[in-house]
């Protein structure tokens, strides 16, 4: 689950990381008020859960409150990479002398969190990582120990940070680690961490991504979810415990298991079709869940056919079949279905679904070819 910059900075501040004075605004008037409170130059920053805001014109400097209001008006109307800007963060503008990169994420290969820093912080950090990887200093954190103080010092030395800043940097690094660990984050990043012209360290930007698996431990953080990044169908699906991603095609898919669901989409494309969605009904899905899944798929007017591919292990094909009938009794539709059932109670499932609007298939290939043919007709 991604957090906005302003949410990340709020958390960082709790953990002793210096952040600019500032507040989030939902209207241009609020932005102006905040600018007045702060006095001096402010930066108006779009709050959207995508990268590249600056390059899209979503981050602008304002010399005074009325300019702040102008910038906010501009930015609050924008869409950046398809996401509407509903809030802006109004921060005191910093006088930046140097930009540092500091971040923590999980290194899957090492099976440990890794803290990374670079003296070449800023928007081109990924280029730096690609072209001059030696400019990125890394320290793997032992999961049972946490970040050791000496590791923060090693990083400070590694990025040639002037010694006068080592103590505060250590505080910032420890704070970032603590925030990461306490909140079960999968990413915590300050880019850039700046040295201001007043010779202070300041976290000018902040990003956090939280482990979805751990949200049950953090209900307060879970409430911070921004629903804008998901299509309404995806939000609806999550309520039912379904994994659903809307795509652009016209062949709806309903499958049990993420790997099999992806494979089903892959095979559809292999035979020249376009999937309308990814949908994993999970293991042991009962009629209710299947019914909800059907309704969500059928809500997409582009869908010309639905491919149901269920390999029943714990999942019972007869339960799935009942769920489909239940959905069809609520949502009257002429959309033909291609049914491919294998495994537990597959025979009974097929029997339950036998009627004119259903085509059965034995193999994955057969099912995909039939679905593609119907969609093209």
């Amino acid at each position, binding site marked *: 689950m991604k957090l906005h910059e302003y949410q990340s900075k709020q958390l960082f501040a709790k953990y002793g990381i210096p952040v600019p004075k500032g507040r989030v605004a939902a209207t241009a008037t609020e932005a102006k008020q905040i600018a007045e409170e702060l006095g001096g130059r402010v930066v108006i920053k779009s709050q959207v859960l995508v990268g590249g805001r600056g390059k899209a014109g979503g981050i602008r400097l304002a010399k005074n409150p009325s300019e702040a209001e102008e910038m906010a008006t501009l930015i609050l109307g924008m869409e950046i990479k398809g996401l509407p800007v509903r809030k802006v963060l109004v921060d005191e503008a910093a006088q930046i002398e140097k930009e540092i990169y500091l971040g923590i994420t999980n290194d*899957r290969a090492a*099976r440990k969190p890794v803290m990374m820093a670079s003296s070449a912080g800023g928007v081109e950090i990924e280029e730096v990582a690609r072209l001059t990887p030696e400019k990125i200093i890394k320290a793997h954190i032992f999961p049972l120990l946490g970040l050791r103080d000496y590791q923060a010092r090693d990083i400070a030395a590694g990025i040639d940070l002037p010694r006068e800043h080592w103590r505060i940097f250590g505080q910032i690094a420890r704070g970032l680690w603590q925030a990461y*660990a306490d909140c079960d984050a999968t990413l915590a990043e300050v880019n850039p961490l700046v040295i201001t012209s007043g010779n202070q360290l300041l976290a000018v930007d902040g990003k956090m991504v939280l482990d979805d698996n751990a949200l049950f431990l953090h209900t307060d953080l879970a409430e911070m979810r921004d629903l804008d990044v998901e299509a309404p169908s995806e939000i609806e699906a999550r309520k039912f415990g379904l994994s659903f991603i809307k795509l652009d095609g016209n062949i709806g898919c309903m499958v049990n298991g993420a790997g099999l669901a992806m494979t089903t989409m892959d095979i559809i494309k292999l035979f020249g079709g376009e999937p309308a969605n990814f949908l994993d009904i999970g293991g042991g899905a009962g009629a209710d869940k299947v019914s909800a899944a059907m309704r969500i798929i059928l809500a997409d007017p582009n869908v010309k056919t639905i491919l149901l591919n269920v390999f029943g292990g714990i999942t019972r094909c007869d339960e799935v079949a009942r769920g489909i009938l239940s959905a069809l009794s609520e949502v009257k539709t002429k959309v033909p279905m291609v049914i491919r059932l294998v495994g537990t109670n597959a025979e009974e499932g097929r029997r339950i679904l036998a009627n004119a609007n259903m085509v059965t298939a034995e*193999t994955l290939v057969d099912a995909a070819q039939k679905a593609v043919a119907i969609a093209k007709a």
Partner: protein
Amino acid sequence: MSILINKSTRLIVQGVTGHDGLFHTQQMVNYGTNLVAGVTPGKGGEWVLEGKVPVFDSVKMAVEATGANTSVIFVPARFAADAIFEAADAGLPLIVCITEGIPVQDMMRIRSYLDQKGVRLVGPNCPGMITPGESKVGIIPGNISIPGKVGLISRSGTLTYEVLYALKLVGIGVSTCVGIGGDPINGTSFIDCLNMFEEDAKTEKVVMIGEIGGTDEEKAAEFIADHMSKPVVGFIAGQSAPPGKRMGHAGAIVEGSSGLAVDKINALQAAGVRVASHPEEIPSLL
């Protein structure tokens, strides 16, 4: 032969009285797995499956009473890490965790601890393993595979079943199927299994089923090129998956590659692995 599980596996089920635990305990017993005990704290002294399986309060008690050497965990995500630590501390060398949704930081702590103790974890978020004809540990249906000489390693659940079934339909049997699961940080990797299959006298060929995300398949490709003499066939799910919208740079910096299916397929092919365009093609490539 086979790897990891066989006739001499003595299995306990953690979470035996839960809905899934109980259902699959019955399935495993029906299959012929040597299932010697179950554990549900607070229900010690009870029996399940009409007196067939004794329930203990703790893994330690179950191991002392029955000499179990393997555990399979059906405990909810909230309690699963504790269950894994308990099994490791009770001296079990092999733990299979079916549970989905374990926080990733729990998994990092678990790996650190288990690596130090020399305990093997398979999973989490996996269907478990099956050595056809001898033992099934987990939820893989018993009737979709036959004993044979192909080793199977997979990150997926039902996609694994598809492959087992596709092999069975043409009479190809499996030495052991290992579901390593879909979590980014897990107990056993492709390389761990490839290594074991290379050493296993009964296994002649290996099939690996991967998917988007991470770099395990790429690392496996390097291992195959450097260390495998036995032929490997692969399939990677997710070629049509839209790339993830990454936020923040750290992931890209750490991983380098973006975990795309096409990169994995290329890496495997470069290592001499024949990669199927869909699972039903796998038998013909063996």
